[in-house]
């Protein structure tokens, strides 16, 4: 047999990771919609849809805090595996090859490829920025004016970065890479998928399972 056995299911994300991810996704979604409603008067209709500006002003920061906490939990779980190795660095310089599906030109990836790792770090950074600036904006009475002024620009700026990268993430997880959603919904991938997208991880899995 030249092809991996399609009957084999390789576990990719355990239940803990999946729950965390979707909690992050939902809270992010809510914070984004409410944030966008307050970002521009043109989008304020969304506030009305979600219970009115006064209500979403109250909920947005709490949901934001929830998002940040979940992000923290995920970071604890994944941070080690998100370090870039030598292959990743080469991968990053050849990212355009990835976009154009020239996989032959790319070094092999581990459990996460360099793009996913960069997304992780980008999300972590923007979350931190959103959390800190958001906290400042939450309590304007108690915060020094200089910090508030900084935050009033930093918060939307970080949000723009975060939303943009999440858009890419959503595209990659759905249309661009078929079957990846299965990993986050059901927790496993098929060997062929693993071999193709994450060869080093697949190899390690094989080695440990003496397939």
């Amino acid at each position, binding site marked *: 047999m030249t092809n991996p056995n399609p009957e084999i299911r390789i576990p990719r994300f355990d239940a803990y990771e999946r729950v965390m991810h979707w909690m992050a996704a939902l809270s992010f979604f809510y914070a984004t919609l409410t944030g966008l409603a307050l970002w521009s008067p043109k989008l304020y209709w969304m506030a009305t849809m979600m219970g009115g*500006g006064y209500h979403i002003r109250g909920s947005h920061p709490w949901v934001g805090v929830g998002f940040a906490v979940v992000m923290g939990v995920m970071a604890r779980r994944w941070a080690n595996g998100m370090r870039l190795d030598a292959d990743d660095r080469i991968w990053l310089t050849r990212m355009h090859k990835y976009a154009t599906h020239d996989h032959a030109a790319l070094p092999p990836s581990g459990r996460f490829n360099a793009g996913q790792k960069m997304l992780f770090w980008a999300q972590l950074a923007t979350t931190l920025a959103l959390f800190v600036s958001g906290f400042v*904006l939450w309590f*304007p*009475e108690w915060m020094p004016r200089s910090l508030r002024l900084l935050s009033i620009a930093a918060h*939307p700026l970080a949000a723009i970065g975060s939303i943009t990268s999440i858009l890419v993430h959503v595209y990659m997880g759905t249309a661009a890479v078929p079957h990846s959603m299965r990993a986050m919904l059901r927790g496993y991938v098929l060997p062929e998928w693993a071999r*193709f997208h994450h060869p080093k991880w697949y190899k390690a899995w094989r080695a440990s399972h003496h397939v």
Partner: protein
Amino acid sequence: MIVAKLIDTTLCIGCKACEVACQEWNDQEYTMGTFDGSYQTKPELEANFWNLIKFNEVEKDGATSWLMSKYQCMHCADAGCLAACPAPGAIVPLANGTIDFVHENCIGCGYCITGCPFDVPRLNATTKKAYKCTLCSDRTAVGLEPACIKTCPTNCLTFGERDELLRMAETRTGELKADGFADAGIYNPQGVGGTNVLYVLKHASEPEQYGLPKDPVIPWTVSLWKGPMKWMGTLMFWGTVLGAFFHFVIYGPQDPEKHGHPEEPSDKS
């Protein structure tokens, strides 16, 4: 017609009658303060205290002076609170130049506090809504002057048509200059498009002595957020969405069948 308040600081005696009138007319709850080392009623404006006389002891060239000036919303032509406010209809510029807060529309985010270059609005701790001087819009609407103006015993405060008040202020400045105050002038900062609260100052080049900011402008971060960043965000959003879409249209999904990796360790068992 744009209306305004003129505060002739040379006639202010710090009697605080305007503070009480403001509290009374607006049915504010009185709160007893703690001592702050000054004659000032409160260190700063509060959600239920919209009109504060600032007391500043200034020592210059060996001479002591005690400058008093009324502090409240400046009703800017180009209002920073309005620029920063995310809730449509919460801050309303009236036709007469008043910047009015409509509390049923206020969402309590406090951005107006940050947007205001004069640091005027305040959040009520329980309702989390922002409050400030309304220029007594409920009085001016029926042809009355604001409560503070009505009560001022020394004619330090005048209410009326803005252009007329500017002329009065110029006359008064002229008088002061003739009396030897070469630095006398009008405080009507252009950085916020001029204000509908005008001051006559003896030391116009140093408004800080009176507790007034020297060159107030809408903070650049607020302008950045409300201007370029809005465009940038929109561009980036649609750029990414469209980019992804066309990427898919051009390249389609990644397919191990088509895009197999040559160095891939295949399962040769």
